[in-house]
């Protein structure tokens, strides 16, 4: 071991010189960064080492949680009462719709049978609460209080009472990380309700969303509601996502810029619902590798 600029006499046992160690560690860290950001190799390593940092995280978040609970406990009675009143009114409002929904669902079922269409996939949902915002200032992620133990899987959609909030990206034993829609790298396949136009929506920064890869003359107007298309097999179809607020049609480029405002309270929702499909989506039939045939054409099946 040696300090930079201060070489010990050569008769002491020395390690690598400081500059060599610096180079070594820099190369290591840059290698890790490339492997993680470019190739996404290290998700399993990350999941493994989480076991180490998890107790620290619990130790760090428990006092904060206590403080929050104490604050909640002492929050004024009147605000709670007004909230109860509001929720009761809302429950009545919802009940009206729910009563009708049962009838509509039956009708839908019968109509689909008449048309010989496949049943819509059912949904399963897990209620969760947003614990805190992730400390990483470069990404928009939140941590929810349900994890692997509660059956949360990566890829599930997260919604609040108004619309889609984000997608579960990492799952820990007791918690899960949800990447919000406003994150720059988060994409969601959507369609415009009015025209049925399909598109992909990305985070645009500043809490806004953006429809990308639509032609400049696409029929999208400010005020249009955008919902999930469900084409990806991850999100359920027809969950409200955003409302178009601004359309910049720039003739110089082939694409227009559609800026949208998320419908869900993405950055402020407390209680969320993690929602997924009951059945796995079917394999892509156009995938390149053909499935091995059980029967050879014209011959008998190999095994019965």
């Amino acid at each position: 071991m040696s300090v930079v600029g201060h070489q010990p006499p050569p008769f002491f046992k020395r390690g690598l010189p400081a500059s060599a160690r610096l180079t070594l560690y820099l190369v290591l860290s840059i290698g890790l960064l490339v492997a993680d950001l470019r190739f996404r190799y290290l998700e399993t390593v990350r999941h493994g080492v989480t076991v180490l940092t998890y107790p620290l995280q619990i130790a760090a978040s428990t006092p904060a949680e206590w403080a929050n609970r104490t604050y909640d406990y002492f929050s004024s009675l009147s605000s709670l009462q007004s909230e109860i009143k509001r929720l009761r009114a809302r429950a009545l409002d919802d009940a009206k719709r729910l009563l009708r929904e049962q009838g509509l669902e039956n009708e839908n079922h019968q109509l689909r049978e008449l048309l010989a269409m496949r049943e819509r996939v059912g949904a399963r949902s897990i209620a969760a609460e947003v614990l805190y915002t992730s400390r990483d200032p470069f990404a928009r992620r939140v941590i929810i209080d349900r994890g692997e133990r509660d059956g949360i899987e990566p890829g599930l959609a997260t919604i609040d009472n108004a619309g889609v909030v984000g997608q579960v990206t990492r799952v820990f034993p007791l918690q899960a990380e949800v990447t919000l829609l406003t994150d720059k790298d988060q994409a969601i396949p959507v369609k415009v309700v009015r025209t049925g136009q399909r598109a992909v929506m990305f985070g645009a920064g500043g809490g806004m969303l953006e429809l990308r890869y639509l032609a400049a003359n696409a029929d999208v107007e400010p005020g249009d509601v955008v919902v999930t298309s469900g084409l990806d097999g991850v999100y359920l179809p027809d969950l409200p996502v955003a409302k178009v607020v601004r359309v910049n049609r720039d003739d110089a480029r082939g694409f227009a810029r559609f800026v949208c405002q998320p419908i869900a309270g993405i950055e402020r929702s407390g209680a969320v619902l993690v929602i997924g499909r009951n059945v796995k989506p079917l394999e892509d039939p156009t995938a390149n590798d053909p499935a091995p045939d059980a029967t050879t054409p014209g011959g008998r099946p190999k095994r019965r």
Partner: protein
Amino acid sequence: MQPTHRSSRILLPVRMGWVWITLFLGLTLNLVPTRALPGVPDFVALVLAFWCVREPLRVNMGAGFWLGLLTDIGYGSALGQHALAYVLLAFIASTMSRRLLWFPPAAQALQMVPLFLMTQVVMLVVRLIAGAEFPGWEYFFTTFTTALLWFPAHFVLLLPQMQPIERDQNRPL
């Protein structure tokens, strides 16, 4: 060793157990969920830089690398982002060690500002190259809150090494 090189007070030798405890305490404090408050100090960087200045032969780039990796995993940020920044921080802090210890703690804190700023900028550059969006100027508040904490940290972290000043009335000198 003295608190600073100008001081005539002699400290007890440092215990490595205490060093590691404070480093992990810093890591735990970093993991406290702060709800996106701007300017939350980077405790690991502070404690790491402090021990790299005080004990450059015992705490150095290796500690920075591993603590950086743990921070990355705890934060859910890119693996290697904090490791890279902390290795550089440890290297420069240990380089500055001999000179820095001649200054009183407040002046040391002032000299640490560019170092903590560099740590932040390295992480910013790494993430911007990777395609993240700029988090806003309040991101740099962390630099100054961390440097401000250098002054109290100087006393808190050296506390176990302090021994009572013995005033011997019968001592001839």
